[in-house]
């Protein structure tokens, strides 16, 4: 009986944790910020108002953060400056490129990271053909046979002339 209760408790805890984690991720991805804001940091690019909803904007990144994504490694608070952490900025589906809404870099820093999958490698020409494209044996055979024919013909003409 005790084992059953323990199992059920563990199962319930597992379900609860799973739900909480999923819900957290979902809310992180659907986090909303004021228009023109991709996080609670800085000012709206459209209205110019502070993105944190107060009269004073949060400038720069939160302590322990190098981007607006995820959590601070020192304090554990969301790097977004808001109550919840964000995985991707608004208008971004990855950390690469720029937000289609705000135009800000999707990695949460001032400089965007280019998606390595979109970088086209420099095409390469093929290696050159640096041997004669003719078959040497055929050429040599042609040279020998034509020379032999010319020699034989010349000899024949000379002999005929002498005979005359």
């Amino acid at each position, binding site marked *: 009986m005790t084992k059953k209760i323990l199992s059920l408790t563990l199962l319930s805890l597992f379900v609860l944790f799973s739900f909480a984690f999923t819900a957290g991720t979902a809310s992180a991805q659907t986090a909303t910020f004021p228009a023109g804001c991709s996080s609670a940091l800085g000012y709206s690019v459209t209205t110019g108002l502070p993105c944190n909803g107060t009269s004073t904007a949060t400038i720069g990144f939160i302590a322990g953060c190098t981007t607006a994504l995820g959590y601070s490694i020192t304090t554990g608070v969301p790097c977004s400056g808001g109550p919840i952490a964000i995985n991707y900025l608004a208008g971004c589906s990855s950390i690469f490129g720029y937000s289609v809404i705000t135009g800000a870099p999707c990695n949460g820093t001032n400089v965007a990271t280019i998606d390595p999958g979109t970088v*086209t*490698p*420099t*095409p*390469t*020409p*093929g*290696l*050159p*053909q*640096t*041997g*004669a*494209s*003719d*078959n*040497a044996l055929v*050429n*040599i055979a*042609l*040279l020998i046979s*034509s*020379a032999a*024919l*010319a020699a034989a*013909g*010349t000899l*024949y*003409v000379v002999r*005929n*002339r002498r*005979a*005359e």
Partner: protein
Amino acid sequence: MQGNRQTIFAGVLVVASLAVFSTVLARATLFAPTDEAVPAVILGEVLGLDLKDNVEVSAESTSLPARLQIPKLDIDAKVQYVGLTKKGNMAAPNNFTDVGWYKYGTVPGEEGSAVIAGHVDNGIALPAIFNKLDDLAEGDDIYVETSEGTRVRFIVKEKNVYDFDEKVDMVFNQKDASILRLITCAGVWVPKIRTHDKRLVVTAVKAKAQISKN
């Protein structure tokens, strides 16, 4: 009368044989097939190659290569400027005594891979300009003389052999140093594809100690 006819026939045969002999000899020893595509820039767009003609870009410049000199192999060859063939390969020089610099690539001496090709043999299997290229070893000197007479010195670092149809990105696109690559045919002649089955690539890097003038 019969004898006259035979003599005339023999004379015609002699003339025809001499014509064949001269044509084959000239074709096999003087004129190498190039198959260079003109205009190459249009071909480059089709192939996805971003072509910049260094000859046109540097029309006023005197830093373009004029001669290739390899003392060890007793080579002092004129440098032709070559582009692409219709198949998208680097073109080769149009004779067996000159070498061809890939004009859409790096200028020798500048940062990147400058590529120069030369024939290994001619149409009757006699040695062409790069016949002894495989004799080069690490540490050997190679010089590229520009049209103004400046010589850029390179030192051989390595040799590699690739399949004839291999796309070797590094050969043309390595950009972390000033590199010179010399290419010629190697392996065996394959009649079906009308070329050798391998390519020898000698890689040299620009020497720190340069000889500025002749």
